[in-house]
């Protein structure tokens, strides 16, 4: 009998999880290279011998919305955006190899190409890219080749990451393979690099606000069900009491 309330509770818990994920998407609506997160729910079947089976809602997982964000032109020579499915590769301060699409790059005092958070940007061979001092005319080709008047200076790597969905999110727009898993990223040539632009967050404001409303409604529905169930039991108890 009481399972009813617990089924509603599972819905309320799922709605709450969805709210948290949506809140994070909205908070990152202006974060360059950010990829939205989505929650996937599943039915959990509880077999009930002698009665009808019941199904609970469980949050099975969350997945990344990998769609490309809009390009915003900045004119900054060290801002790059990727047009296609490829990913940039970074080495974090802890030495982890991570993947992401945030192309707001800058240089370290030694001329090493890095992100705003200080992660080094890698070439297709996994090495860092160092630019000599005194470069005036920095050009980055669609293939990621950096050149100036002095000639070719290096190439920013672009990678195909087939099992990105199973990667852990590190923050700062980075994804890393989960512990024990193999890094299956491969250099790709099907992606184009665009200099002087950044890829804005792929979060769709209207979709997110609609989701907020949806989450709120399903939460209300769940609490309403719990409330009704409670009233039903009280009502039943009152009637039984009267009978006695």
């Amino acid at each position, binding site marked *: 009998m009481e399972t009813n309330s617990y089924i509603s509770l599972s819905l309320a818990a799922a709605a709450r999880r969805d709210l*948290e994920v949506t809140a994070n998407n909205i908070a990152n609506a202006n974060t360059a290279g950010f990829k939205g997160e989505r929650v996937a729910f599943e039915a959990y079947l509880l077999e009930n011998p002698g009665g009808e089976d019941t199904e609970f809602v469980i949050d099975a997982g969350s997945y990344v919305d990998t769609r490309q964000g809009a390009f915003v032109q900045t004119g900054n020579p060290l801002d790059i955006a990727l047009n296609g499915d490829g990913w940039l590769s970074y080495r974090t301060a802890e030495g982890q190899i991570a993947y992401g699409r945030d192309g707001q790059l800058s240089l370290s005092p030694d001329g090493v190409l890095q992100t705003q958070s200080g992660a080094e940007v890698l070439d297709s061979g996994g090495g860092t890219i160092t630019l000599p001092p005194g470069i005036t005319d920095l050009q980055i080709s669609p293939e990621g080749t950096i050149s100036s008047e002095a000639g070719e200076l290096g190439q920013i790597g672009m990678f195909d990451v087939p099992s990105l969905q199973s990667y852990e999110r590190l923050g700062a727009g980075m994804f890393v393979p989960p512990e024990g898993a193999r890094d299956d990223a491969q250099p790709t040539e099907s992606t184009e690099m665009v200099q002087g632009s950044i890829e804005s967050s792929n979060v769709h404001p209207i979709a997110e606000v609609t989701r907020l409303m949806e989450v709120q409604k399903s939460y209300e529905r769940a609490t309403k069900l719990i409330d009704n169930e409670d009233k039903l039991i009280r009502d039943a108890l009152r009637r039984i009491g009267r009978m006695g």
Partner: protein
Amino acid sequence: MKALSIAATGMLAQQNNVDVISNNIANANTTGFKSARAAFQDLIYENVSREGALTSDQGTIAPTGIDIGLGVQTSGTVRLNTQGGFVSTENDLDVAIDGQGYFVVNLPDGGRAYTRDGAFQLSAEGQLVTMQGYEVDPGVVVPENTKSIEINEQGVIMAYVESDPNPVELGQLSLATFINDGGLRPMGNNLLEGTAASGDATTANPGDPGFGIVRQGYLENSNVNIIQQITDLISAQRAYEMNSKTIETADQMMSTANQVR
């Protein structure tokens, strides 16, 4: 409710964004000012259920996990170091840098600062100084009775004194460049200061390889793109509103929960 604090980080980030944008707009007519942009990054993720967790004894694994992000933070402000437009002033002591580099300014405390603002003046002693009265490196003193001053593209300063048709060479302006311009710290008064992030200054004369040339009689306008700033302002405001909507929703959900029995 994590959603409350997540939305709070979002509002804070947008507040920073508006601060940076309003400073850009306020400096739209400041000589040598470089437009800045707030860069954001997502905060760490709470790994509620791990990617690749075993789902059966046969070794099947979960293809995805559950990652709950904790919001957003400002990772830095990026200065856009593109060339600003030239404004003709016809003033002998106004110089603009066409290309890379910064004028070197000797601060009264002995330190050095860097600027793109070439609106120079003369001190009571005839010294070439900035608007704040700080000496422009290398210290150039203009002799008395100077009729006109000429500064060529290489920054060589020449003075025509009294009726002498041949100019007197007074010195040559120096320029500094940095590996990472973005690492320079703005000090206000159009001055920038070197930091560990910018690297050491490389000093040379205008016109040397990798350095810009100077143009007398011009000032470099700010490179603020007003239309861009206004559209950024609109998007920042909307993003702020969306985050407040999240807070509202979370609040209403909590109130709904409280009303159950």
